[in-house]
């Protein structure tokens, strides 16, 4: 049993190493390393979605603050869109500001 525990710890060590070369930084123990203020805008077939529709689509508020890497938001949007049928996919714009820096924009499709 102890070896299973050591295996779990080694997996995390690998995730910390991966966190240095990946943008999403999942499982690399980086709590509260970033403050990302963001606003998600989505249009499907030219029609904009409401804030509630955005929340249901990504399980995330359309406007909010995330305390992890901004790439978590992009990753969730990207994956949520990719699993939809092509006509249902949206065009997404995320306006975000990280740690109080000037606002930037990320778009999907990229």
């Amino acid at each position, binding site marked *: *049993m*102890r070896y*299973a*525990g*050591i295996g*779990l*710890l080694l997996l*995390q*060590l690998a995730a*910390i190493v991966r*966190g*240095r070369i990946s943008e999403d*930084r*999942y*499982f*690399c*123990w*980086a*709590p*509260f*390393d*970033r*403050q990302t203020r963001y606003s998600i805008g989505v249009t499907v077939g030219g029609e904009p979605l409401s804030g509630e529709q955005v929340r249901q689509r*990504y*399980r*995330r508020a359309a406007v909010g*603050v995330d305390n992890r890497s901004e790439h*978590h938001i992009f*990753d*969730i949007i990207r*994956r*949520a869109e990719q*699993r939809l049928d092509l006509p249902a996919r949206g065009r997404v714009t995320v306006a975000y500001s*990280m*740690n*109080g*820096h000037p606002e930037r924009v990320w778009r999907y499709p990229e």
Partner: protein
Amino acid sequence: MALSRIVRLTGCGLPEPLVLLCRLLALAILLSNHVMQIQTPFLPFVPGLDELPGEAVQFALRAALVIGCLGILFTKRTRLFAAIAGGAILLAVLSSRTYYGNNKTFTGLMLLLAALSAKDAKLLRWQFALVYFGAGLNKLLDADWQSGQFFEHWASVRLENPFYLWLSPKLPPLVAGKLFCWTSIVTELSIAALALIPSQSTKVIWLGGLFQCGLLLFTGDPFNLFFMAMQAGLLAFANWPAKPILVIWDGSCGFCKRTKEFVERFDADGLYDWRKLQSGAGDAYGLTRDALKRALHAVSERWVLSGYSAIRRMVLYLPLFWMLWLAAFALSPNAISRRVVVAAALLLLTPLSNPFGNAIYGWVARHRHELLSGETCDMD
């Protein structure tokens, strides 16, 4: 019966501090209603989990978490139920990118690693070291942490922290931010290093405890389960008494007798061996009758304490104290009450409380024979 069961740590198949650690985590999960945060699978880390019936998976995970927590609290099979509760949280994390969070992952891992532990807490200590190493490393290599920009923005814009807003303008630009950022980085990396050295356990408890409490007092935010899990996790570094602690008390005092009976009610593991000073119990330790009459003494293999210091140390080893403290914290309705609960604990546990603790203890000790009128002396 339920209270007696919940505070009994022996005979549960794990070292006492790990049993208490699991119970505190179970309490934190149940009292903060964390169970309801578990979602149906969505964009899972493990492919295929979202192809299972979502509602059924959610119900199963919630049920497993509740059963696991109740089993930890009310049965002796701590290892089994910690594995169930920890496994449920980790599976919930792996099943949804929107449920994923460091606090949940840490809580799940602590429970699972406790279940996988042998007779010591090494796995949990290494887990602690990994968390702080990862957190410290990420900050160390981040430009906004190096420059102080992170804290400047977080404390002034997001938190609007009054202390930071007062301090920052008094210093050159970003100096306050840099001070807080680098203090965090150095502290986190120091804890990571100390956690790997068995002889430094006490420093980890103090440094880790004060760091997390300081963060809580600064932000008022427990970051979901994170604060409670981190505080409970410090038990992996606790040096639990191998033998009962000898408590030498005044057997001629009714108030002392009532106090002894009150403490014994919650000492389900018989951690305190109460001996009257009149029995000569202090002789073996060179404690004079006069000293023993002035104050209660507590003697372990490694220390001899008297008066307020002895009472404080005895409280520290009572599981009920930690459970009540955690319950008070978990049920706190807002940031102010959370700060009060944490500040009260800090005051009690640190030397800051010595002046008034000693004064109150001294007064009670001097007037102990008057406090319970009608009590008869017990001089056997």
